[in-house]
């Protein structure tokens, strides 16, 4: 990929126009091959289609600027994934949506002797049954979106996008310990938020 953009030493017969056309062709190919998944990723992190489009545009600009420095130490897709996450997080920071917000109402409860307060679960909906129903999928997606950004982003990056705790800490500029705390609280809050879906009591 970078070779196509590098000056072609020893091929003086190639005109300036030829190099420009070549560069544009590489750029078009890069955008065409990656725009859909990058947009989907940005949309998951930002929860907004238009903001995601802005983030993808910024990501491609950053990628194209850094393309010459990209040394192929990771796969191109991995590299673009990280750039997209970074630009989306920058947008969230600018919108001040990454500040920590209270989540305590969704965390487990205990009584005065440290016993858990938890209503009985006679049955739990299976993952397959939830995924098979469009209505339930939407209900789950709405509930996940209710998580404050600072928790949802950690959940997304760690549990879905496969980043390690250290990588998430670097991306968000927080400590590894803070990532772990947020991750556990996000998972616990998710359990509370998904209760009506898992108990099959969505309408009640």
């Amino acid at each position, binding site marked *: 990929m970078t070779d196509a953009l590098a000056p072609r030493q020893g091929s003086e017969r190639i005109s300036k126009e030829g190099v420009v056309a070549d*560069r*544009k062709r590489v*750029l*078009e190919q890069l*955008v*065409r091959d990656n*725009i*859909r998944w990058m*947009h*989907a*990723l940005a*949309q*998951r992190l930002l929860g907004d*289609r238009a903001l*995601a*489009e802005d983030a*993808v*545009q910024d990501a*491609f*600009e950053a990628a*194209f600027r850094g393309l010459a420095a990209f040394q192929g130490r990771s796969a191109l897709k991995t590299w673009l994934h990280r750039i997209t996450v970074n630009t989306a997080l920058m947008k969230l920071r600018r919108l001040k949506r990454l500040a920590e917000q209270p989540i305590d109402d969704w965390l*487990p409860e*205990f*009584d005065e*002797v*440290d*016993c*858990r*307060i*938890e209503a*009985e*679960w006679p049955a*739990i*909906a299976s*993952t397959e049954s*939830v*995924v098979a129903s469009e209505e339930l*999928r939407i209900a*789950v*997606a709405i509930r*996940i979106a209710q998580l404050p950004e600072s928790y949802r982003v950690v*959940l*997304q990056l760690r*549990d*879905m996008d496969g980043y390690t*705790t250290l990588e998430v800490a670097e991306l968000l500029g927080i400590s590894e*310990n803070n990532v*772990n*705390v947020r*991750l*556990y609280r996000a*998972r*616990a809050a*998710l*359990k509370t*938020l*998904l*209760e009506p*879906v*898992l108990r099959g009591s969505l309408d009640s």
Partner: protein
Amino acid sequence: MSNRIALSRRLKGLVLKHVYGMVTCRQFDEFLSRCCERSLAPSERRRLSWHARLCRECRDYLAAYQRAQEVGRAVLAASAADALAPASTLEERIVARIDAQVASDASGAARRATDADSKKPFRPD
């Protein structure tokens, strides 16, 4: 909550707190949060499993907690596949913008080179 249930909860709380090798529900929760950082030591795992066998609330909680993670992951993965596609013009806009930037960078560099040449002191041959 009836008196009988309140009493049995209290009793359970005291047993879990004071009997050697047992953990309270709150400690059970701390073990769960530690699972995010590292895998648990065999002794911690054993305590979790004993507690879950004795405590209906934590057993139910753990099952729902784990199912919520599975469902969340599965739904997010499915929604990634059905995510709204970007506007059809986005691809063109991105290419045009980057192309314009590259062209402007190139002409800027050329202009700077010309300016630098023009500032060189004149040296007659």
